[in-house]
């Protein structure tokens, strides 16, 4: 309005480090910092938890069933007297692993599709963007359910009940969530492709692959990191939803969603059984989302849907 353009203050302070600047902006988002800390604790808990809390996940003790939290069972027990804390530590490993793996799948596919669409000006680019839009309008959960319904027996035979369903869930969740990343990467390509330094590299005879790897992808990194972070949360929700509907991991695998599914018919006598795993999912997801928000502030990425 009044042409009040300000020079970047950090440029004036002399020493300029992009990472320090990023951290400075991230640390201004208090909730994001708290979330990062919480998530770190959660990850540590599920990674080293089993070495400290040495209670078996499937010791059945009907007499001690449906107990609320106590010293012997900090999170209480389920209807069969199994220790909920131990089961949650186990389930947390699966949930986090699914989240991370599915994010990697979606970022990989998204980057690939986005890069191809961004580089080709012709029919391929248009076709890929049409495909991206098509996937965006697919009803994800019904399709997820359909795919698992159709493919789970086949994969179970090849990779075993737990491994098969893990691969399937990761591939399907990742395969249905790559579109935002593809759009971001493509947008970055279109805007960066014309910039001077890429022109310069092209003039110097850099091959297209080299241009992409050395010049364009590092610039697209910020938005992709943010989208990837949020993808982890979305994948955790998707996996928990499947387990909650009784269509995810096998019944004896205590993922957080599965624990909720088992607990939902006992809400009147054992609310703790549902509250702990539900709370764990919520805390994980909200923490990841806040971290994503903090990263958005820090990396200053423009939002693209």
């Amino acid at each position, binding site marked *: 309005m*009044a*042409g009040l353009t300000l020079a970047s203050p950090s440029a004036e302070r002399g020493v300029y480090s992009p990472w320090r600047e990023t951290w400075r902006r991230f640390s201004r988002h208090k909730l994001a910092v708290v979330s990062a800390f919480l998530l770190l604790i959660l990850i540590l808990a599920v990674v080293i938890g089993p070495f400290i809390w040495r209670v078996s996940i499937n010791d059945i003790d009907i007499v001690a069933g449906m107990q609320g939290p106590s010293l012997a069972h900090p999170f209480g027990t389920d209807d069969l007297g199994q220790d909920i804390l131990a089961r949650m530590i186990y389930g947390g490993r699966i949930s986090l692993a699914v989240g991370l793996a599915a994010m990697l799948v979606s970022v990989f596919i998204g980057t690939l599709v986005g890069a191809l669409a961004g580089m080709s000006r012709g029919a391929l680019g248009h076709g890929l963007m049409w495909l991206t839009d098509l996937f965006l309008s697919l009803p994800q959960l019904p399709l997820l359910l359909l795919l698992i319904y159709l493919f789970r027996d086949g994969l179970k035979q090849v990779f075993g009940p737990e491994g098969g369903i893990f691969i399937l869930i990761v591939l399907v969740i990742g395969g249905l969530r790559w579109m935002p990343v593809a759009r971001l990467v493509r947008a970055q390509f279109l805007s960066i492709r014309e910039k001077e330094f890429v022109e310069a590299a092209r003039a110097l005879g850099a091959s297209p692959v080299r241009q992409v790897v050395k010049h364009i992808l590092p610039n697209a990194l910020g938005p992709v990191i943010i989208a990837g972070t949020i993808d982890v949360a979305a994948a955790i929700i998707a996996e928990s939803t499947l387990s909650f509907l009784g269509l995810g991991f096998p019944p004896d695998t205590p993922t957080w969603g599965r624990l909720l599914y088992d607990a939902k018919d006992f809400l009147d006598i054992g609310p703790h059984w549902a509250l702990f795993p539900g709370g764990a999912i919520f805390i994980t997801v909200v923490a990841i989302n806040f971290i994503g928000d903090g990263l958005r502030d820090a990396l200053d990425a423009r939002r693209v849907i």
Partner: protein
Amino acid sequence: MAPLLEIKGLKTHFSTDDGILQAVDGVDITINRGETLCVVGESGCGKTVTAMSILKLIAMPPGRIAAGEIIFEGRDLVPLTSNQLDEIRAKEIGFIFQEPMTSLNPVLTVGEQIAESLRRHENVTRKQALERTIEMLKLVQIPNAEGRVHNYPHQFSGGMRQRVMIAMALACKPKLIIADEPTTALDVTIQAQILDLLQDMKERFGMAVMLITHAMGVVAETAQRVVVMYAGKVVEEADVDALFADPRHPYTQGLIRSIPRIDLDSEHKTRLEAIGGSVPILINPPVGCRFAPRCKFAMDVCTEKEPLLRQIAPGHRMACHLGDVQLGDAAGALA
């Protein structure tokens, strides 16, 4: 007769992450009834913020009027609330903005946008408002006004949109029109048409015009009096003829020398001069004269003491130490 608008010691500040930005820092401007006053200066010198402060159209927060009075027809506008100012906006003081492409709401017809001002301030029916709107569009020479009134802004060219903006600003026949770089975004040929139209309207309605511009050519063509601003302060003020004939502040001199002249033949042509450097950032500005770092004549005193605006001839004021020295020398010579 009391002036129409008197701005006294206006300070408008913005709080930013890096400190207080003193966009306008002690500005005095007076506008008389029926006159055209030009405010000139580079981008970022505070002219737009000054104009926007009059009707509190700056974003608050982060903006804030830190000090000063804005007296319009004997009434100070600074302490008024936004609701109270609404009675003055458009009704008493009309605004024309710089960017005709973005200053009109894309989802409302131009007719609705002009009429809503009439319906707000004057007791008219929908039908009367429409008639007045068409009348205004005819006045600003929009062909087929009866049909065009129902068109959306994107169906108009830039020049036509600026005519619509003028019609909108004039609809309630205000006593003062503030035009913020009304021609900057337009083609050169259209610029002249819009300036002519503005001049016509001013004569027809007898209102005062505060024209903000960075183009000295526009100043020469339209102004009666000129205020030169630099870095949030007024550095010189004079009648238009006096200013062009005898510019006293080095910054004004620089501005005038940067006008291309086609009236001189090639022998008399001089190189076009640019003023080196750019407007400083107004966060914790240095003491002394703000123009000193770019001034060819800068002396030691310029970085130590701030020059004050003072009268150097009837109706001619400026703020530069150079005058003191010259006057001092002259005094010495006389003695």
